[in-house]
């Protein structure tokens, strides 16, 4: 493949020239509040002077800054590394070794998509903090760059690299990709069942209510509010649930529409998703340390799961969310994909080793203790402050719910050691099963709190460079913890037994 070098002769490449169109838009959006303020200020002093036509100055300035950025930003691949050079006065050159590249993200917001562009983020650090950002390349160039970075079949010898600064790579053959998962629009029904969906929806409703209160003087709104108030209480609840569900569905569609997970012949995973902003995440197989099957209570009751990657170099789960391997989807679909990825059916599906009576006692204690305190407070409030008896009736319900929670938390607690993976599961409302590759474990911590010592259990923590960095087996017996450590890393404990 012959590669054009738009920069200069030395293999330096530039961002796509169409970013010159994107840049003013982005700048405009960023300074929108300031621009609005200026416009309002001018309208209030209208007719005074047309002399300060600031946009005549600002627009060329913004375009010039963009052009400068385009002129000064260059990148190249060669000698086994990627270099990014930026800046006119403060020249910075960022260099990363190609074999440190873990994931490549292509993000296209609406204005990118209109021009066929994509922002390329290259992650080179274990915690996803070290990234090279190219904003923006054409989608074709972005994909080719990704192929060069991740689909290297075999590293060519260095002299060859110097002669051909651009690695000779066959373009990623999409037809050879194996599709692992494709979104079924019917899965949208799971959207309201996830806690994150509910939280997002609740936040939106909260903002909307606050916003509406400003216009409370408006006649139509007030009368509508009166009508809502006139309804029976359960109608309010139904309306609220309907609104929240609708918003959750909206959020699901926005982020997961067109979700497609595929794997190429080298084993690299490739996820594409998004309705308006599209995201393409590519995870090198050698960086993938396992998967996390999540089963929050709502999804579990509906027979659904969702799937995340446990990989080095991805941003942490809360930021970005580029580790999705499956949106909330039926359990069969998710487990099939998980088995396909980790290639270890028992790690995903097999029954787990329970942690024993001490662990159950601790789960129950920890669930019941707060309930007992609250219950006692309610009864005391009735006796001392004369609260209505209705509150005291809630006490048995509270205790029963706490008991159920404790039992369910124990039911969710378990671990398993397979020939290639360590499996750890815990939680009730937010249950998740982590399947972690044994070779990804780079150390152990055995913790025992004061209360755990009295109960005769420990928490075994496997530390890893991937995902959350540490995965825990809560409340196992010391003997069991030692057996797990000895089975997975026999050489390590041989000296200390």
């Amino acid at each position: 493949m012959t590669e054009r070098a738009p920069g200069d002769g030395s293999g330096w490449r530039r961002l796509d020239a169409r970013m010159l169109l994107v840049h003013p838009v982005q700048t405009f959006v960023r300074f929108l509040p300031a621009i609005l303020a200026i416009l309002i200020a001018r309208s209030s002093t209208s007719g005074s002077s047309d002399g300060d036509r600031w946009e005549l100055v600002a627009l060329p300035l913004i375009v010039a800054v963009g052009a400068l950025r385009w002129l000064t930003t260059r990148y190249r691949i060669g000698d086994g590394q990627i270099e990014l050079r930026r800046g006119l006065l403060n020249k910075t050159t960022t260099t990363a070794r190609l074999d440190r590249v873990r994931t490549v993200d292509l993000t296209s917001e609406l204005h990118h998509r209109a021009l066929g562009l994509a922002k390329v983020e290259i992650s080179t650090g274990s915690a996803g903090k070290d990234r090279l950002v190219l904003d923006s390349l054409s989608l074709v160039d972005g994909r080719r760059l990704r192929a060069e970075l991740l689909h290297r079949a075999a590293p060519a010898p260095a002299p060859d690299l110097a002669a051909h600064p651009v690695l000779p790579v066959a373009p990623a053959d999409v037809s050879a990709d194996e599709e692992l998962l494709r979104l079924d629009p019917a899965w949208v029904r799971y959207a309201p069942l996830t806690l994150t969906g509910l939280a997002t929806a609740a936040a939106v409703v909260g903002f909307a209510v606050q916003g509406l209160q400003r216009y409370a003087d408006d006649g139509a709104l007030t009368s509508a509010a009166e009508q809502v108030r006139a309804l029976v209480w359960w109608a309010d609840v139904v309306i609220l649930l309907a609104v929240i569900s609708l918003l959750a569905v909206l959020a699901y569609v926005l982020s997961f529409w067109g979700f497609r997970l595929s794997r190429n012949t080298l084993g690299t995973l490739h996820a594409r998703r998004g309705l308006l902003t599209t995201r393409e995440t590519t995870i090198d197989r050698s960086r993938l340390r396992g998967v996390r099957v999540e089963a929050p209570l709502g999804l579990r009751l509906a027979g659904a799961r969702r799937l995340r990657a446990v990989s080095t170099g991805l941003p942490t789960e809360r930021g970005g969310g580029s580790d999705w391997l499956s949106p909330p989807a039926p359990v069969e679909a998710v487990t099939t994909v998980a088995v396909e990825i980790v290639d270890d059916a028992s790690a995903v599906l097999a029954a787990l080793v329970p942690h024993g009576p001490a662990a159950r006692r601790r789960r129950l204690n920890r669930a019941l203790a707060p309930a007992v305190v609250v219950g006692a407070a309610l009864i005391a409030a009735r006796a001392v402050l004369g609260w209505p008896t209705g509150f005291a009736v809630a006490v048995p319900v509270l205790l029963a719910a706490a008991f159920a929670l404790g039992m369910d938390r124990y039911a969710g607690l378990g671990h398993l050691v397979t020939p290639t993976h360590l499996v750890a599961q815990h939680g009730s409302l937010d249950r998740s099963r982590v399947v972690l590759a044994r070779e990804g474990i780079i150390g152990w911590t055995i913790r025992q709190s004061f209360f755990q010592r009295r109960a005769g259990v420990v928490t075994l923590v496997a530390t890893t460079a991937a995902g959350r960095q540490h995965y825990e087996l809560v409340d196992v017996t010391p003997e069991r913890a030692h057996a797990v450590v000895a089975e997975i890393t026999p050489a390590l404990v041989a000296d200390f037994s």
Partner: protein
Amino acid sequence: MVHAMREPAHRVSPRARRLWAVEAALAVLVALAAQAVWWFVDDAPDRTAHRVVAAVWAVVGLGYLVVMPQWRYRVHRWEATPTAIYTQTGWLNLERRIAPLSRVQTVDLERGPLSQLLGLASVTVTTASAAGPVRIHGLDLPVALDLVDSLTAAAVLDVGDAT
């Protein structure tokens, strides 16, 4: 705690007890300073509450000062083999950490002002996991220097850090 695994072989320096005691004393002094401020700010003539709190603090603080360093000294242990580093720390809550030297990224030697006065040093061994640094506090300086040398030599031999 874990019966199946023996304790690490070495204790830390006996002077570490003094280090922990001084650190504990500083923490107790801060609490006492808060108590003094309260004494002068509070205008109520009744001083019973002050005396009760002061008494509780005195007992807890003194107990902490006397018990914690001794207890901790009995718990804190470490051992380094050519392939792994193994530590045991804590007093109320116990913790054992094992890291294979093949996965070590950095080895740090730290000496705070107090440690320097007492001729002590701490060694921190980090792996590629943000959750897994192994720390040994209160080592005699020569021991710490030896340890750093041997760990660095072992870490250089291997390149894979599982990231």
